[in-house]
């Protein structure tokens, strides 16, 4: 291992060191002072995040198994940032007495998961991809059941682990078929061999379904709502932002590079999937009262939009996906942050419980409104830009009808986002959530997300930066 390899692997190595460091540090902290691990972990992870931003050129390691590009680095930075925000938001939750004994584990597990994602993103062959994927999902099942005293949480965990095991089984079966047809597990080799034969297409569909499961694309999404509802809010946020972000990114990479030759096929598959994903996500989100479940379906819809970008199948497509992910990090985490803050203060996690929130907690309501409007794609918030570029990307391939369908669905989504806004701002309530002060880390995270929501859309330099990264990666 020379210095260069270390630089290429810096995200993963740092995270590993940090995770194991925290794990060890935990051994030396007495039972009654476990809370201090929160601070320690936050500091450690902030350093990890910041160091990740040090620019470096890409390269490959391990004979092509590990591919680091500026784009993957950037994506890892986004994920780090998202996780940092989640950590900031989770302090209140972790400070509760029933969680104090497992504080470090929370951080460690998430960091391990993150390592898995980083490897998945940088994967150059399907073995690394698969192991990264599993590393990114198995511990999450444990985290979903983190509130182990709650039956909902337990249910979430078991549903996630069993279904994810099955889906990875299906995905592996697909990979085996692709291996049979191409004779390799390396992306670069497969890309040369892929052509439209039934075997490959079948393998591809099996593979796609597995990835679709992680991304919760309809009809592989059914676990999403239940797990999101049952898991602790931070984990829900993690699942909906970080897991999904990583999966979306690797989907783009694999589709654009490995399966480029059969794009004719996957574009039409995605076409159908986009429509059902957006529509079903919308139809289910309409009726939800539990805010987490609501955000689950909303995130399904958002993934549908994200696939529009994938359909672009060019650097604009990739850029729009990554850009959207960046925006999505801020937007969704703002929403989850508010949900978390309110839940910690009052235990309310239903939309009907949010009635009259503006009267008592105006700032939180405003952040929530910003987040929801951004999710709905209302200018000048970042979500508008993100969504517009996704549409642009799909339109660049001539899928105008799809854009119309998607945009009309965005209108339906606006309906339910507005329902939340309505609950907070318009509906009267005799007993609204009482006025409370959220923790400082929570405030910081909400502040960062709010700034992100407002600023990222206008910041064309970010977009252009991603474009240059995408060009690097794809050409």
């Amino acid at each position, binding site marked *: 291992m020379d210095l260069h390899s270390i630089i290429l692997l810096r995200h993963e190595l740092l995270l590993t060191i940090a995770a194991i460091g925290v794990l060890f540090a935990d051994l030396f902290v007495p039972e009654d002072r476990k809370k201090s691990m929160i601070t320690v972990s936050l500091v450690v992870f902030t350093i990890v995040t910041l160091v990740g931003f040090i620019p470096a050129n890409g390269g490959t390691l391990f004979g092509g198994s590990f591919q680091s590009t500026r784009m993957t680095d950037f994506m890892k930075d986004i994920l780090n940032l998202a996780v940092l925000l989640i950590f900031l938001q989770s302090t209140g939750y972790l400070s509760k007495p029933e969680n104090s004994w497992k504080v470090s584990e929370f951080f460690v597990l998430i960091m391990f998961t993150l390592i898995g994602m980083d490897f998945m993103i940088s994967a150059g062959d399907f073995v690394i991809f698969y192991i990264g994927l599993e590393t990114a999902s198995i511990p999450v099942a444990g985290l979903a059941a983190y509130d182990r005293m709650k039956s909902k949480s337990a249910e979430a965990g*078991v*549903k996630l682990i*069993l*279904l994810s095991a*099955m*889906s990875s089984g*299906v995905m592996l079966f697909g990979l085996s078929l692709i291996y049979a047809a191409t004779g390799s597990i390396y992306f670069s080799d497969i890309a040369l061999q892929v052509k*439209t*034969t*039934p075997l490959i*297409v*079948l393998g591809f*569909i*099996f593979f796609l*379904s597995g990835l679709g*499961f992680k991304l919760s694309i309809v*009809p*592989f999404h*059914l*676990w999403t*709502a*239940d797990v999101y509802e049952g898991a602790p809010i931070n984990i829900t946020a993690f699942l909906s932002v970080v897991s999904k972000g990583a999966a979306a990114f690797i989907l783009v990479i694999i589709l654009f590079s490995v399966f480029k030759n059969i794009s004719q*096929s996957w574009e*039409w*598959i995605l076409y*159908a999937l986009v429509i059902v994903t957006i529509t*079903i996500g919308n*139809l*289910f989100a*309409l*009726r939800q009262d539990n805010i987490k479940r609501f955000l689950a379906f909303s995130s399904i819809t958002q993934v549908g939009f994200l696939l529009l970008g994938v359909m672009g199948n060019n650097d604009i497509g990739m850029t729009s996906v990554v850009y959207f992910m960046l925006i999505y990090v801020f937007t969704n985490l703002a929403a989850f942050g508010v949900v978390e803050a309110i839940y910690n203060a009052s235990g309310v996690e239903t939309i009907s419980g949010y009635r009259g929130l503006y009267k008592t907690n105006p700032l939180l309501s405003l952040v929530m409104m910003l987040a929801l409007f951004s999710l709905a794609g209302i200018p000048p918030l970042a979500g508008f830009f993100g969504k517009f570029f996704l549409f642009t990307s799909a339109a660049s391939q001539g899928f105008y009808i799809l854009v119309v369908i998607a945009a009309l669905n965005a209108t*339906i989504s606006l309906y339910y986002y507005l329902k939340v806004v309505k609950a907070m701002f318009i509906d009267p309530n005799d007993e609204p959530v009482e006025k409370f002060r959220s923790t400082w880390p929570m405030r910081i995270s909400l502040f960062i997300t709010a700034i992100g929501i407002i600023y990222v859309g206008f910041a064309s330099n970010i977009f252009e930066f991603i474009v240059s990264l995408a060009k690097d990666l794809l050409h």
Partner: protein
Amino acid sequence: MVDFSYTVFILLIPLVVFAITGIWGGRWKPIISGLLGTFGIATIFVMSLYTAYQYFFVVHHGGPYKPIVAMNFLWLPLTEHLHIHMGIMLDPISVMMLVVVTTISLMSHWYSLGYMKGERGFARYYAFLSLFTFSMLGLVVATDLLQMFIFYELVGVSSFLLIGFYYQKPSAVAAAKKAFIVTRFADFGFLIGIFILIYYTHSFDFLQITDPNTPIFETALGKTFLGYSALSWATALIFMGAAGKSAMFPFHIWLPDAMEGPTPVSALIHAATMVVAGVFTIARLFPVYYFFTPKVLLMVGYVGGFTSLFAALIAMTQFDIKRVLAYSTLSQIGYMMVGLGVSHYGGEEGLGYMAAMFHLFTHAMFKALLFLGAGSIIHAVHSNLMQKMGGLRKYMPITHITFLIAALAISGIPPFAGFFSKDEILAAAFLHNRLLFWVEYITAGITAFYIFRLYFKVFWWKDTQYEHTPHESPWTMTVPLIILATLSATVGFVPFSKFVSSDLMPFEPETHWNLVIASVSIGLLGLALAWLLYRKENDLPDRIAKALGKLYKWTYDKFYIDEIYLFITKKIMFNIIAKSVAWFDRHIVDGFMEGVAVVTEKTSEKIKGFQSGHLQQYAFVFIASVIIIALTVLYFIGA
């Protein structure tokens, strides 16, 4: 060459007066507004007379009376070549109208100082009068059709405002609405007529289109629709507008109701000036009608003839004195239309044209007088109904005498003004269209009958016991009456054909003595009949009415034209169309949009079973979807 540009003040002064009294009138004493208005009108009256003098005796002494555009500015460019100008065009008829309008307006203003004294909204009243005067003057001096249309609308709205002056009286409100809407409907035709004209000729400037030798109508004449040339349709539609303003059948219904307005308003607007705007329009476009669409001109004549007879018949049976006068107005305007309809072009041939204008002129004087006299009576008796009057000659001598003069004038008894003009119309009809001649001839008799029926019932009949003894009106009211009576008695001697003619050349009309005798005798016949029936209280009229039975009733109920209109508006337009549109909009269109939402919600409810919470079902959906997608894709890639 005399500079006529000062004529712009004839328009501007009333406008300014309107603005001032309209905005600040409520703040100061009412009488100030009245005086301001009256003096304003007096000024422009003088200016109009001066203009007439200049035009007829200085500039064009002895004719031909070429039109003069005194002022013109671009108001609105429609296309690159088609611009709407606002301007002042002086030609014989517009100068004549300037005089008529300012005269009657002045009289009305003056008269109103007494008549409207103490009314709430006195300033408003004068503001509206000024507005009307401005609009009417703008109409008569219009240089192009669209300017005319614009002022058509403006006189319409002034008329609306003035009819609805007593806006707290529901009947006044209804009448105002009716007047406006009926004329608006006619204006709709007018506008389309103008557009058809523009479409084919690319011109609506009077100077261009009224040139008898103009070539611009060729395409319009070439295109036909339902057997008539496009130009015919245009002119017919323009006549529709004219008929609306002039209350020709079937647009006449608004005029009797318009009597809800203050009486001086009826005198000014609904007798002398605005209602003849239609006649004026036809006269203005006379060469177009005569040379290019003679059939339409004939139609104008027939509509006029029918209206005049029809209205005269109704006038015989009415008891509201203002309504009698209103129907009389209809009838007289019908005369003017007949005059135009039967007229030919040039010199003696164009007698009808000249006669129509002449009748317009004289009619303005005597009809205004009749109305103001009626106003004076109403002022004294506080009622409009003949049944509540009688024997008034003792109480109101000046009113009585002036009214009698006017009645004689309208009956066509020499030497009063009406005689000359009506006789010339009859002569023209006699020369060119016998049918119309006979219609008008009979109408002349009926006219004399109903006006003297009115006269006798009000001033003779019986000695009614009044709650408050009626007394003669103040001088502010009687002086205008006297002035107008003088005019009614004398203006017949104006050598009108020297000034106004169809081809702008003065001419000397022949006198048809046989016609003169005939027309005077039928007038006297009517007068005598009225004398017989109504001089003293008796029950003969009632018995006659009974004997006529249905016929009388129909006439009394104005041949149910109002009811037909009501049926069309209330039943068809409101109840059928508007209600069904409202229903359709709420239930079908909006229902569809709501339906989309409901269907979405319902679907959402229906498919919730997919999210059953059941682990294994999720797995099944997962696998089944994979298989289905695979099958579909494999089918499509042709495996």
